[in-house]
């Protein structure tokens, strides 16, 4: 119990203030739809949470195992397609089975890519994910009969969310899907946090810091890297299942390589190697993009400038902002 090795970058221990903040935050988010009836903000926050989960999974991959992936949104897409197809063609009511199938199928796709990843690694792998990502994107676009091509997946039913025979509401209702997303994302966050703070997470970081040294200590480097990869992909596939339940629609543009760079942006904006930072990054990125694209038809100029300034002047992301301020206060 007491042999906790402190790992730089991860704050261990449960501080009362932290817990209070988390409880208040969750309470606030949970009550939000009942306070504000505006469905646009409910939708926007749902989207932020889903992309936050995706960004967090990429953060696990990049911040803890050091593997850069441009195709993370492709896993979100694959999972969303599988869940959607399951609900359309096999059973329109069995939500949990559909999500389970989505996660399993995505893992099966991710496994061979992960196999390649542990053997190459580094920038070569990052570019390989670019190729795989574009391949999946093109396949989805071309496989007209199954995926609906560019039209996207049509005719998604809205299944009820039920647990142990207890009906919690319909996924067609924005408030229900909002709360459902909140609960699932919270569970995923704490589970991931638990995993990352366990010895397993420590091993992953040891590998990230120095692969050779880790292998000398007797760690099966490839095995652990593959496990880290699979963890990230499973989290992404959960985000995918939530995505299709929320939007009722999935199309190939969600899976393109440029959208993948957007997810990477979210992680860096939030700060690398901190799980909650990914959520902050996703929320900021989605809000900025939404806000700027309404401003003028030349929104690309402003978005580009914002990205450039953030990378130049906020090098450690939003998480690092606190450190900056502390240093500033100390003089």
């Amino acid at each position: 119990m007491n042999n906790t090795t402190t790992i730089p970058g991860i704050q261990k221990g449960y501080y009362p203030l932290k817990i209070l903040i988390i409880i208040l935050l969750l309470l606030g988010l949970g009550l939000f739809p009942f306070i504000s009836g505006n469905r646009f903000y409910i939708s926007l926050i749902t989207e932020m949470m889903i992309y936050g989960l995706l960004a967090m999974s990429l953060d696990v991959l990049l911040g803890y195992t050091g593997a850069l992936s441009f195709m993370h949104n492709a896993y979100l897409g694959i999972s969303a397609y599988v869940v959607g197809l399951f609900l359309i063609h096999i059973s329109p009511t069995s939500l949990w089975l559909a999500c389970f199938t989505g996660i399993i199928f995505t893992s099966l796709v991710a496994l061979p890519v992960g196999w390649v990843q542990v053997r190459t690694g580094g920038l070569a792998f990052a570019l390989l994910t670019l190729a795989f990502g574009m391949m999946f994107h093109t396949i989805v676009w071309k496989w007209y009969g199954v995926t609906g091509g560019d039209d996207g997946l049509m005719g998604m039913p809205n299944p009820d969310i039920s647990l142990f025979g207890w009906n919690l509401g319909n996924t067609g209702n924005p408030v229900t899907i909002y709360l459902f997303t909140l609960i699932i994302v919270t569970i995923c966050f704490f589970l991931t946090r638990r995993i990352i703070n366990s010895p397993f997470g420590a091993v992953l970081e040891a590998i990230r810091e120095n692969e050779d040294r880790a292998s000398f200590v007797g760690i099966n480097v490839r095995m652990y890297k593959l496990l880290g990869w699979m963890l990230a992909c499973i989290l992404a596939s959960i985000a995918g299942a939530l995505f299709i339940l929320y939007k009722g629609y999935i199309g190939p543009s969600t899976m393109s390589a440029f959208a993948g760079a957007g997810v990477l942006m979210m992680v860096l904006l939030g700060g690398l190697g901190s799980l909650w930072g990914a959520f902050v990054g996703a929320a900021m990125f989605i809000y900025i993009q939404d806000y700027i694209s309404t401003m003028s038809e030349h929104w690309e100029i402003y978005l580009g400038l914002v990205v450039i300034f953030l990378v130049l002047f906020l090098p450690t992301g939003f998480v690092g902002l606190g450190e900056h301020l502390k240093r500033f206060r100390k003089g």
Partner: protein
Amino acid sequence: MKRIFFVLIIFLSISLIFSCGKKTDDQSETISKLKQEIVELKATITKLEAELVLARTPKEPLKIGVLVPLTGIVAQGGLEMKYGIEMAAEEKGTVLGRPIELLVEDTQVKPPVAVTKAEKLVYKDDCKALIGVFSSGVGLALAKNIDKLNVPFVSTHVMTTKFYGLHPLVFRSGQLANDQTAVGNVKGIMARPDLMKRSYYVIVHDYSWGHDAGERFIALAKENGIKIVNEDYDKAPIATKDWSSYISKIKASGADAVYMAFITNVIPVFAKQASDFGLQGKVKLVSAAAPGPLELEAGGEACYGIFGASDWSWDVDNANSNDWEMRFWKKFNTIPSDAAVHSYVGAMNLFNAIEKAGSTDAKAIADALRGISFDGPYGNVRISAKDNCMRNSAVLTETMAAPENPFGAKVYMKVLKTFTADELGPPE
């Protein structure tokens, strides 16, 4: 230790919440008094609010959401659509005594983006109707979400046949649908013996509209005995910039005409490259969509001889059309295009329907839209009560060197023939 601490905190916070609920007798008296006051205050406020709303209603603008692509491959078309809708709003001025306010959002031709923007327009900005939209994928994604949004949606540039009778709140008033264009083009080809004898090579952009357009043309052409070289037609990715391999393929196939279903601004690009390869004059280009005038200008002489059916061209000669062109030219200083004019007409149909409905209720507007018609630059445009899609007359055009004109255009779409609405169908 930590765990104990954790549990303590939870207990503390829970007891805090409960303690707020408990109150002593002394407090409860004051509270009940306060409560009464609050109730009274509330009543006054509601009264005042109601009066205020009544006083303000006539001036409060009626918000309409405009969804057009302003970035991405069809940005130019999107801009022209926006111009058309803006012009209609300005000319109409007020609806139900309220000024029209257009809120424009960029769809980026990405369906998920368009859905998010539509949610923003309806939920946040309280738009009473949506108009615009380029590309079938975007249109269908919006239609899928229209139950949630619960506002009427008039698309002006979605050509897919899936839109016929799709949803009671989804309408089309704009560019000819795929089946209508195919009928127009085949009728046009049949009327010209030199075109009838040719064998056609079919090439489309690889997305749902392209596929639909290609298949409809092939089916109809075969019925009419027009020769098709490749019934398993080519689907080129939208990103294609270098058409040389397709052009080589056309050369190799021995076809002497090409039926192309490309996004408007790619039509002159393909024509230009075909002309570079010396195909101009030898291979006739028949298009399933109207090429944009600005793109034709860029292509210049290479774009002569593109044949095809569309709603309108500035060559259409009637008082209404000539007047409209000049108004558009004065306002935007852009050559008036098909995209602009049919978006204008679609917007007019929507505004008139809201006026006719007498309220901004979604169902009332939708009921008013069914069967409504507008006399615009290309004649009467009527939204069918049966399938929510428009019927209108159209023109068959061929691009060639333009005569003297106020816009300074060098290439134009000469009107060869006018189709009546009944000729193009579909039957009601």
